[in-house]
């Protein structure tokens, strides 16, 4: 039953506000005077959002409250200009402002998740095929379909049912635990409960995937957020969480004096805001907010066993909620530390990686490479997003989480191994690619790769292939330099 309910939880909460998109990055020029002006101007706008004074207690309610948010300006930023003056770095100001501006534009996100979810039959069965998904008829449904469009399709390609994107399981549902899985879980428990967790061993065990039961604590350890020494963990957590909320108090609190409701959106906004304040040099790039979601969802899963169907974030105790938020912040920060040049001015890290991808593919699959050249497809045209959002736009969330088990176990997983994963991912579609006979067809395909039903198995294969590529090429860069 626990498995069943947590499965439903995944369905429900994967599309958190922030989960989806854009939010922040290295703003350049560092201080845009227009920004300040806009914020002040926006203040004078009538506040049409009831959200502010009303506690949104569930995703559903939250969604209703924000349903009109999509093209409204940024009323959210009402109190921003006052806190503005208290911040000392101009750059940080601008960057943080951008977080807020973008984030408030994004308030719509949870609505999307919600409207999608509310369309699900009450038994929440997983829609297994795109044809089934197409059957939906209501306008809301159409809207959900549309919402999935970016990931899914320009003209008519199968639509990813949201549930399939979110569920932690393969579309076929959660199978009962095998003996092997039980043994693995036991092994994890042993490692985690030992006085000093052997991190090398933990990485080794985690590479092929972390059992969901122990994922939250394993991720905290793998990311370097928690110390290996078991006795010190509790204190570290306490200290880091306090530290985070110290930042909040220092930089953020003044914005929302009257009301501290902890909705998903607010939590995400705070996390991104604080990150931006602390990383003024980093780019303010849409997509970084996506990177909070896996952490948030994994840490939330620790506390949500029952009644996830109508999961209400405010039913969690303040303490729990704060710990999820702080942990998500720190782990995301650790991740971003490793890929900072992805998000600095002109995004050099991404440019470099796309170039490396091109070189690699030209070595491992000349046919695909030449096919692209023949039809003038450039790698940057499709792979930019793969790098900018770590494939999160191309894969269901459950797959991203599984992928991150490995990324966190692999040295330089996010910054380096990801390149091999992208190469393996591309080659995975070689047949479909070679079947396309023009630029347009290729671009449409590459923008909307049909990963809708992907689960652990597909990711496992992908990672194995990526590992093989890395093994072949990583230590011999000349191999792939033509």
């Amino acid at each position, binding site marked *: 039953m626990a498995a069943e309910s947590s499965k439903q939880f995944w369905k429900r909460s994967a599309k958190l506000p922030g989960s989806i998109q854009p939010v922040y990055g290295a703003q350049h020029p560092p201080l845009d005077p227009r920004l300040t002006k806009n914020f002040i101007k926006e203040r004078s706008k009538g506040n049409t959002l009831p959200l502010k004074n009303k506690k949104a207690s569930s995703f559903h309610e939250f969604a209703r409250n924000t349903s009109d948010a999509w093209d409204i300006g940024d009323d959210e930023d009402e109190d921003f200009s006052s806190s503005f003056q208290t911040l000392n770095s101009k750059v940080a100001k601008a960057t943080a402002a951008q977080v807020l501006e973008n984030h408030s534009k994004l308030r719509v996100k949870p609505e999307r998740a919600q409207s999608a979810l509310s369309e699900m039959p009450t038994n929440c069965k997983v829609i297994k095929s795109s044809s089934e998904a197409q059957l939906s008829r209501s306008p809301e449904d159409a809207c959900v379909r*549309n919402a999935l469009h*970016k990931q899914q399709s320009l003209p008519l390609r199968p639509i990813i049912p949201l549930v399939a994107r979110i569920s932690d399981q393969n579309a076929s549902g959660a199978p009962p635990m095998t003996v092997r899985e039980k043994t693995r879980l036991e092994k994890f428990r042993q490692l985690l409960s030992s006085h000093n967790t052997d991190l090398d061993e933990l990485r080794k065990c985690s590479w092929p995937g972390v059992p969901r039961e122990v994922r939250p604590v394993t991720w905290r350890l793998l990311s370097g957020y928690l110390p290996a020494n078991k006795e010190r963990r509790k204190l570290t957590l306490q200290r880091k969480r306090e530290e985070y909320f110290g930042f909040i108090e220092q930089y953020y609190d003044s914005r929302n004096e009257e009301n501290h409701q902890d909705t998903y959106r607010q939590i995400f906004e705070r996390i991104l805001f604080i990150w931006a304040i602390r990383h003024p040099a980093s*780019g303010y790039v849409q997509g970084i907010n996506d990177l909070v979601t896996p952490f948030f969802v994994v840490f939330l899963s620790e506390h949500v066993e029952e009644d996830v169907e109508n999961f209400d974030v405010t039913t969690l105790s303040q303490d729990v909620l704060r710990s999820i938020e702080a942990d998500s912040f720190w782990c995301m920060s650790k991740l971003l530390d490793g890929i900072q040049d992805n998000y600095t001015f002109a995004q050099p890290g991404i440019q470099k990686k796309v170039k490396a991808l091109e070189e690699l593919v030209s070595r491992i699959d000349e046919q695909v490479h030449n096919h692209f050249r023949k039809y003038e497809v450039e790698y940057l045209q499709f792979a930019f997003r793969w790098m900018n959002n770590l494939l999160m736009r191309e894969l269901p969330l459950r797959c991203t989480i599984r992928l991150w088990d490995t990324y966190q176990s692999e040295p330089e997983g996010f910054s380096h191994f990801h390149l091999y994963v992208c190469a393996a991912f591309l080659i995975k579609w070689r047949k479909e690619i070679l079947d396309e006979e023009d630029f347009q067809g290729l671009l449409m395909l590459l923008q909307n790769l049909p990963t809708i039903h992907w689960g652990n198995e597909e990711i496992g294969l992908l990672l194995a292939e990526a590992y093989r590529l890395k093994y072949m090429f990583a230590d011999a860069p000349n191999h792939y330099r033509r």
Partner: protein
Amino acid sequence: MAYAYLFKYIIIGDTGVGKSCLLLQFTDKRFQPVHDLTIGVEFGARMITIDGKQIKLQIWDTAGQESFRSITRSYYRGAAGALLVYDITRRDTFNHLTTWLEDARQHSNSNMVIMLIGNKSDLESRREVKKEEGEAFAREHGLIFMETSAKTASNVEEAFINTAKEIYEKIQEGVFDINNEANGIKIGPQHAASNATLTGNQGGQQAGGGCC
């Protein structure tokens, strides 16, 4: 599919003005109130008919966010048409037009046709930019102008098609060198057959006939 010409477009403008929605309305005839924000650039395409000729439009929809600018700029080159979009309910998006225009002019070929679009015309009650202001800006800078609504589809077809008509006329006038693909125009296979009737005063563009 056979076509006479292929035109490449780019859609630019501030975040949240409705660039992706305009494209979606044009290519798929639907409106998506909530969608993922564009990362970098995204691609769309549709066939239209002008003067009895099939014309394929390939459209790059760019992310409005400043940090992506260095990526999106490279798409100006090779575009025959640009849709420069602002949101009539947000004055700031109109105020930024000059910056966008400078950027476009600097990075594109000089003949690129630019259509100025005031989007979200369905939100009359929240309007912050008068239609006359859009018209005046367009006049001053030599742009075509329309107000559209990606939501109701009002003028969306027209915006894309009028831009194509303008490009088509420029071809007829011989302004565009259609043999230079950097101009964002290609001659299609269909055109190769009836080439002579279409070329206007273009000289020696025959060579491109077979490409697609």
